[in-house]
């Protein structure tokens, strides 16, 4: 009986068109936003959230423009702590541009680029990241990737 119940439960989750967005869809909008500062950052539509299993890696290829400042914030559910790793690569050359594990696992990275380019942001949840918690599924947690941008402050006189 117990087995049947468990099977039915799994089947319900699997077959009900279980919405990915329903799980973590706007996670980055709710939980990755930093406290308001004097700087006016705008939400960038290339932001994304997802449900990650331990050992899982996803990549996101986005476009960033020169003349803009960007702020990337990666945040996750508390069970993952600060164990989410992310790396930023040049989309064409695959050159590693940033690795948060080499920067004290920082969740926030601010940068600008001298040229417009495609970036690949690789987000990884290492094995053993989630802790056992009897109240939730321990193999998965939401991870959000918030991208914000603002116009780079001009230095000197400018035509524009």
């Amino acid at each position, binding site marked *: 009986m117990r087995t049947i119940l*468990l099977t039915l*439960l*799994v089947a319900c*989750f*699997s077959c009900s068109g279980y*919405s*990915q*967005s*329903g*799980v*973590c*869809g*706007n996670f*980055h*909008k709710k939980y990755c936003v930093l406290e308001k500062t004097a700087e006016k950052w705008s939400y*960038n*539509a*290339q*932001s*994304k*959230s*997802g*449900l*990650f*299993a*331990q*050992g*899982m*890696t*996803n*990549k*996101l*290829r*986005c*476009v960033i*423009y020169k*003349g803009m400042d960007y702020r990337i914030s990666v945040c996750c559910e508390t069970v993952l702590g600060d164990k989410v790793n992310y790396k930023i690569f*040049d*989309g*064409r050359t695959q050159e590693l*541009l940033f690795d948060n594990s080499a920067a004290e696992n920082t969740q926030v*990275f*601010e*940068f*600008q*680029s*001298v*040229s*417009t*380019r*495609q970036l*690949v942001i690789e987000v990884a949840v290492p*094995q053993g990241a989630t802790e056992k918690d*009897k109240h939730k*599924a321990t*193999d*998965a947690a939401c991870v959000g*990737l918030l991208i914000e941008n603002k*116009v780079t402050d001009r230095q000197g006189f400018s035509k*524009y």
Partner: protein
Amino acid sequence: MKNLHYLIGLTLAGSMTFTSCGGGDEKVDGPEDGMDTTTKVENNVNTPVSETFFQVPSPGEMLTFIKMVGDPKKKDISFLNPPDNQKNYNDSKSKALNFGIYSCDLSYCSIFEIGSEALKYFKAVKIMGDQIGVSTAIKPEILKRLESNLGKPDSLAVITDDVYFSSFEALEDSKQGPTLALVVAGGWLESLFIATQLAKWEPNSPVIERLADQKYTLENLIEFLKKHETDANVAAIKTDFEGLLAEYNKLTEQTTASDAKKGKDSKSTVIGGGTQLVMSKEIYTSIVAKVRSLRNSYTLTK
């Protein structure tokens, strides 16, 4: 009970992926390219799964830039797709494409402070949205918010952005991938079309540079369309966009300095390197013509 948690976890893992709030979709890397990743995770939770999502900036981002470097007081709407044309779109392909196009036109009216037209475009977006199944995302009260914020361009832009993002999420939630792909394609193409209508040829101008840089977005968009190319409508648009990419591939590339360094305030890093795309007048003219041709074929206008 322990088993129950394990099974829930397993099932959640089965539906796992980066969920989009931008314009992307997934592609499995490696030899299993195109496989259904859901099955893959369910079969072996411990296997790392790597997917790549291809993101597309919103039309509003391009329009905001054009306003910033151009004439912010320009209030020309002659090149937009007239709202009345919505009655001409009877098939699912043209409805989805023109929902994206009208959403972009709505953003343009908001960003360029053409409030009275914004209301007309909102109504067109609402009608088209109801027809493609995103009525829940475009609630009637948004019209009231628009009306009460007509004199506030920043607020209007936020409201119209909300409409775009909510529609996007509604399509994603209801798993209408092909429709979403067409909407994103229509919105991006319209932003490019508007930019070409507002731009004047001038070598090294920020607008022309930004138009050249759309090559990168176009590449992402084509990858996004590939995910849904089993749908005949999406496949047709992908072919159209590959034709446009062929024009973009004629751009020359200049390598830029490759040093990365910390910014003055040490908080921001400056990433060096990359390439600058250089647009000649000849290529610009051919891209403008191609964009116009595609856009007008989608709006059924001349």
